[in-house]
């Protein structure tokens, strides 16, 4: 893993936001969403990004996607086209898909916008096959699908421009428990099948433990711990990581009184 080529170099990156004034003449308040963050994303790895609300993980993703610019530091992407090669799948497929568009148009939107060459009809069929949706889905609308299927549509769209990096921002959090495993299995299949580098953001630590090779733990805009997932879960070093791991309810840690 370490020998593989780096795709992203994130060096001392910070991003601050100005909060709205509480009073007319009050001085502007700044919050530092991402604070001096450095890491490398290697080709072919699955990187987990763990942290609670306000930890800065969403801002960090926006920075990777080029949707936000850092106030300080530098992000270098060593591929050819960041816009085409780095794609994202969000938590809630219902709000990420335009309800008035047919699935084929949704899936092909990035291809159309980026004016990528190729037989578009064949591409739709290929993508629907890849995410396990029937081909006749192409002519239907998002509301005709279940939550899990809508997430498959969102994944198909993310795959359309043939990305090298796929970022999943809480990709299974809004799904029924019985459907989550399907989508996690699909992401793993796609990772292997398309040689993807996966960045997985989740508040569900069991999902991160299961899916990732390496993990970054974020708290208050900083990376407080980084390392191979297996090691971090076995022997967390930072107090915050320990607190996080101790807080996870598990099937095996029962209430004292119960048998």
């Amino acid at each position: 893993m370490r020998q593989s080529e780096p795709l992203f170099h994130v060096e001392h990156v910070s991003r601050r936001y100005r909060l709205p004034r509480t009073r007319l003449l009050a001085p502007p308040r700044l919050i530092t969403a991402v604070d001096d963050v450095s890491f490398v994303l290697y080709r072919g790895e699955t990187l987990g990004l763990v942290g609670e609300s306000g930890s800065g993980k969403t801002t960090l993703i926006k920075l990777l996607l080029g949707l936000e610019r850092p106030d300080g530091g530098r992000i270098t992407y060593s591929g050819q086209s960041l816009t085409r090669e780095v794609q994202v799948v969000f938590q809630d497929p219902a709000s990420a898909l335009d309800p008035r568009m047919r699935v084929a148009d949704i899936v092909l939107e990035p291809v159309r916008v980026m004016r990528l060459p190729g037989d578009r009809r064949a591409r739709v069929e290929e993508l629907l096959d890849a995410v396990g949706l029937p081909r006749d889905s192409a002519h239907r609308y998002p509301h005709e699908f279940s939550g899990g299927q809508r997430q498959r549509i969102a994944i198909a769209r993310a795959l359309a421009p043939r990305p090298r990096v796929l970022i999943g921002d809480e990709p299974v959090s809004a799904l029924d428990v019985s459907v989550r495993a399907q989508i996690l299995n699909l992401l793993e299949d796609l990772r292997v099948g398309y040689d993807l580098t996966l960045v997985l953001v989740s508040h569900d630590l069991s999902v991160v433990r299961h899916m990732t090779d390496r993990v970054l733990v974020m708290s208050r805009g900083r990376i407080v711990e980084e390392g191979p997932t297996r090691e971090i879960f076995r022997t967390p070093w930072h107090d915050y990581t320990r607190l996080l791991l101790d807080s996870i309810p598990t099937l095996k840690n029962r209430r004292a009184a119960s048998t």
Partner: protein
Amino acid sequence: MAEALRVEDLRVRVGGVEAVRGVSFELEAGSRTGLIGESGSGKTLTALALMGLLPEGLSATGGVLYAGRDLLALSDDELCELRGDRLAMVFQEPMTALNPVMRIGDQVAEPLTVHRGLRHRQALAAATELLDRVRIPDPAEKMRSYPHQLSGGQRQRAMIAMAMACSPDLLVADEPTTALDVTVQAQILRLLDELVDEHGATMLLITHDLPVVASTCDRVLVMYGGRIVETGSVGEVFDRPRHPYTQALLDAIPPLDREVEGRHLRAIPGAVPGLGQFPPGCPFRNRCPKADQRCAEMPPLAVVGDHPTACWHPVGSDR
């Protein structure tokens, strides 16, 4: 052991479709029972029906027996007398359950003036103590705050303080930690556990999260398609699941203590059907690996091994 609540053949119809289809269970006094279900399982409708809080136009049939009375037969006035006093509820999203234009202190004090006849000042003093008890920092100051000025975790604590104000017999908590961060979730679950203990209350915890139930409850009810498909102690249901649905749910959760071969979980095929789309007979049969013709008939909830399950082909038997 004495029972705190008994539910008999509860049914709720939504637009001509039965969404809760004959649910029966009892809650032992002082127990914590987890009601597990996914979207469309009918778990939230069941909770709302118990509390007489079903939305306009929906009504429940069957029986909800509490202290010798059938709650479904009570008038609105009689129910209002019990709710917030003997029966209390905590919701997933405190922002929608709390009144946005009313100060936190007045809201927490309200059940005490309504049900306990405390004067306003006494009730406010008691409310400050309650906020302190649920570990809201600076309780005196927070009394004067409005809900939007509190963090999500603090709002949930305030709602718990309100629910526990009159020391209820039964606390129904519907996904109380689903919207919270994992460290806050752990604190809130610990708080609920302590308060239920202190007040000798009975808790019904409604959630889709199996690990939350394992770590908080002693009894489990598993719902699917408007029916209870399995019930027993946490140990019975989670260590020796009998219903293929329960087994499948447990298999679909990524383990924290080991790697899974090829990173492939055993997934349940298909999706949870929409309301009215469940197959006749056993609601799980179109997703179940063991289903056959017999499953076209709904199996009764009957004891298999050490606890009841509703399946013709329970896990671990040749039946």
